[in-house]
């Protein structure tokens, strides 16, 4: 067994009284005070997350863009410098190697932000499929990442950077100092609230973290842990790799068809995905609300009229809605909104029904009817 790794903020988390857990091989704060209060801080004011466990893979050189184009499920050539796109890395049979955000950092360079649990797998995958003249680098260890999320985020960050945030639209990023440290500021997040992801050197991370917490306190900013991150992303209907996505799950089954875009040359896995699209899906990811008592947790079976039709991938009480919600894969014939289901909660059938995802309105989807960025 390999040792549990620490982010540069480990000591800071412990000082703040965090409960540390092992997540994807890293000791991470699951909560500082309470998951519900941290969740509410993000929805009402702002929360600050250490997400330095996530990985960064940089592509550079004349073949950087064409390599990414061949590996990712969305157009990369057309992504302008300063743009971010959510996309999927797929395997030959159309399963998901990882879900990533792609940052176009220059004419011949880009960066993928990848899930912590998949850093080694993704890096090997990309290197294996890259030509010699594309330089691929794993920058995960030297990169620190904070997520500042919630409606007060812009106002808090504006106190610590001269960068114009007003004009930084969602899914755009820029570079500029934060607390006098070199940073890349991206208007993205994994909570369903407005906010920023701030990339800094690992050695600058603690300074920036402390400065944000100090300056943001009067605006309601609280440190927030992975527990709140999970309840927030679930309400926003965002998939979590290892739960809704894995090597054997198609993006189409996961409801991510809008992030699979046709390309003239296709991409790795696109044939398998198109074939599945033509043949139709046998199972689909749905959102559900539990009508009875209890919490539906990952792995619980889903039944319809006493027959197993699927299983829960994520489930939790929703602090924003005051209800128990979740996501599950179910056979396609039972995936329509309002379909009644039973979740088997510790041997008991508890009534639930299918609802639309996201569970709460998110900035990406409430704004305009523009295509996804």
């Amino acid at each position, binding site marked *: 067994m390999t040792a549990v790794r620490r982010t540069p903020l480990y000591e800071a988390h412990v000082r703040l009284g965090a*409960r540390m857990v092992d997540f994807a091989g890293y000791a991470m704060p*699951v*909560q500082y005070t*309470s*998951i*519900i209060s941290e969740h509410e801080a993000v929805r009402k004011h702002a929360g600050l997350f250490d997400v330095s466990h996530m990985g960064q893979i940089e592509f550079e050189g004349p073949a950087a863009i064409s390599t990414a184009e061949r590996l990712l499920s969305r157009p990369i050539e057309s992504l302008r410098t300063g743009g971010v796109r959510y996309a999927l890395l797929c395997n030959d049979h159309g399963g998901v190697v990882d879900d990533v955000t792609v940052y176009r950092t220059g004419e011949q360079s880009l960066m993928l932000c990848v899930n912590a649990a998949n850093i080694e797998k993704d890096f090997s995958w990309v290197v294996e499929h890259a030509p010699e003249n594309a330089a691929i680098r794993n920058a995960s260890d030297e990169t620190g990442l904070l997520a500042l999320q919630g409606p007060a985020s812009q106002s808090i960050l504006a106190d610590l950077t001269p960068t114009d945030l007003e004009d930084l639209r969602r899914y755009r990023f820029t570079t500029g100092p934060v607390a006098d440290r070199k940073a890349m500021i991206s208007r993205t997040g994994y909570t369903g609230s407005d906010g920023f992801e701030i990339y800094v050197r690992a050695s600058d991370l603690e300074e920036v973290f402390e400065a944000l917490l100090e300056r943001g306190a009067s605006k309601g900013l609280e440190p927030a842990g992975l*527990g709140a991150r999970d*309840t927030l992303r679930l309400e926003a209907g965002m998939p979590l790799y290892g739960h809704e996505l894995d090597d054997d799950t198609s993006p189409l089954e996961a409801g991510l068809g809008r992030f699979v875009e046709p390309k003239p040359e296709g991409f790795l896995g696109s044939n398998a995905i198109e074939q599945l699209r033509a043949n139709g899906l046998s199972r689909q990811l749905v959102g559900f609300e539990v009508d009875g*008592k*209890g*919490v539906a*947790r990952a792995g619980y079976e889903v039944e319809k009229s006493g027959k197993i039709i699927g299983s829960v991938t994520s489930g*939790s*009480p929703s*602090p924003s809605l005051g209800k*128990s919600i979740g996501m599950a894969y179910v056979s396609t014939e039972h995936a329509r909104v309002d379909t009644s289901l039973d979740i088997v909660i*510790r041997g008991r059938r508890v009534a639930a029904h299918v609802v639309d995802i996201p569970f709460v309105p998110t900035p990406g989807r409430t704004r305009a009817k523009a295509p996804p960025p």
Partner: protein
Amino acid sequence: MSETEIPANLKYSAEDEWARDEEGRVTIGITHYAQDQLGDIVFVELPEVGRALEAGEVFGVIESVKAVSDLYAPVAGEIVAINGDLESQPELVNADCYGSGWMCVIQLADKSELQSLLDAEAYGRHVQERDH
């Protein structure tokens, strides 16, 4: 561990329940340590009044945002009361685990059973050993 975390006048089980004996009627709840480990409690499922329990039997379920955990009867006996407030206010277990966050009252079958439970000092050691 302080008196507010592990009151000296209670008995404890190794599964983090406390017991307060009043002439054979034993009030049961979960300890400060247990509620802290669970985090925000969102659901407590308790048995029906009248149910007979063996010592160590699972009598209910407690769910927090992150985790689900069984409740074990620290002593054998019959359930004579449950805390109905927990149905609408499960957070009472976090706020006041030794008071308004109580779970149920068991009418003891055998009074000597209380002797098998831990006192505050022994339970405090038990918690510390687990934490390290």
